[in-house]
């Protein structure tokens, strides 16, 4: 990753951790003396506040590892695209975390409780659609461990299609009932896992030496 992308992402993580800490401190009198009054929703919000920075930090570390594969050189547009997506996801996660913090601190303000899950699915789905559409167009890597370019291109397109369709289903699910949303997420999770497994399998294959003329 570039220094700027790394710095931006870790700055966002630090801000999110600070927000989680501030919200926890603000709720400390309740947590210390009347924990039951927090109710399950309050505990879920508190968990979410700490989950987001941890999740983004893990994503940054994983991205750094994946942008340095052994034996292959990723194309510059692939690197830029991956870094830009990571920054966008980090910013979106920070915005959702801020919303959850506001919900925890101002529980009487009912307008804040208006379906953050729906907004999350709508924006997350849009990110999936854009990522899947454009990701298929990126140049293949080069190097001795790089997969055969034709295979990279075909797998990229299939993965792109899967992501676009999943994103569209998520965006539609944003307007469904909470139960339907959970069902939608459970339905698309295997598709996401299968797509990711196919991608990893393709990356492990190599083009091999060129065949003699």
């Amino acid at each position, binding site marked *: 990753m570039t220094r700027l992308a790394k710095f931006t992402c870790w700055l966002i993580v630090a801000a999110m951790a600070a927000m989680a800490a501030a919200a926890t401190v603000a709720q400390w009198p309740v947590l210390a003396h009347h924990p039951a009054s927090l109710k399950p929703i309050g505990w879920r919000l508190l968990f979410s506040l700490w989950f987001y920075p941890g999740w983004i930090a893990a994503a940054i570390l994983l991205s750094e590892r994946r942008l340095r594969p052994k034996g292959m050189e990723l194309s510059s547009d692939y690197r830029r695209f991956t870094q830009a997506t990571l920054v966008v996801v980090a910013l979106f996660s920070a915005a959702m975390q801020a919303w959850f913090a506001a919900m925890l601190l101002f529980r009487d303000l009912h307008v804040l409780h208006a379906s953050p899950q729906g907004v999350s699915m709508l924006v997350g789905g849009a990110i999936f659609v854009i990522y*899947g*559409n454009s990701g*298929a*167009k990126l*140049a293949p890597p080069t190097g001795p461990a790089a997969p055969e*370019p034709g295979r990279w*291109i075909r797998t990229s*397109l299939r993965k792109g*299609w899967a992501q*676009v369709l999943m994103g569209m289903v998520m965006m539609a699910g944003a307007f469904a009932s909470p139960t339907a949303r959970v069902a939608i997420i459970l339905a698309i999770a295997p598709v996401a896992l299968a797509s990711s497994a196919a991608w990893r399998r393709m990356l492990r294959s190599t083009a091999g030496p060129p065949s003699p003329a």
Partner: protein
Amino acid sequence: MSQVFKALADPTRRRVLQLLRERPMTAGEIADHFPVSKATLSGHFAVLKEAELIAADKQGTSITYQLRLSVLEDALLAFADSFGIGFTAPELTSRKPAEGSTP
């Protein structure tokens, strides 16, 4: 986007994209699949490059072309193929024209 529509409107160019889906190919390898002159195909390559549907990598005297399709462009390609959009270029149905003659 209009360049993409223009590129996908021609069946010859769509066939080039389908060939490149298998693997990157040189201009000569692609030309072997068409009964047209290399000059005619070069024009098609230029349109596809301008629409950013293919990328060209020049190595010495040969140029290797690689597919660069987004999902939306792939969908448009499938749509155009399904409905047979675009006239069938005369050179696809006739013999290879003599050099210098107009089609």
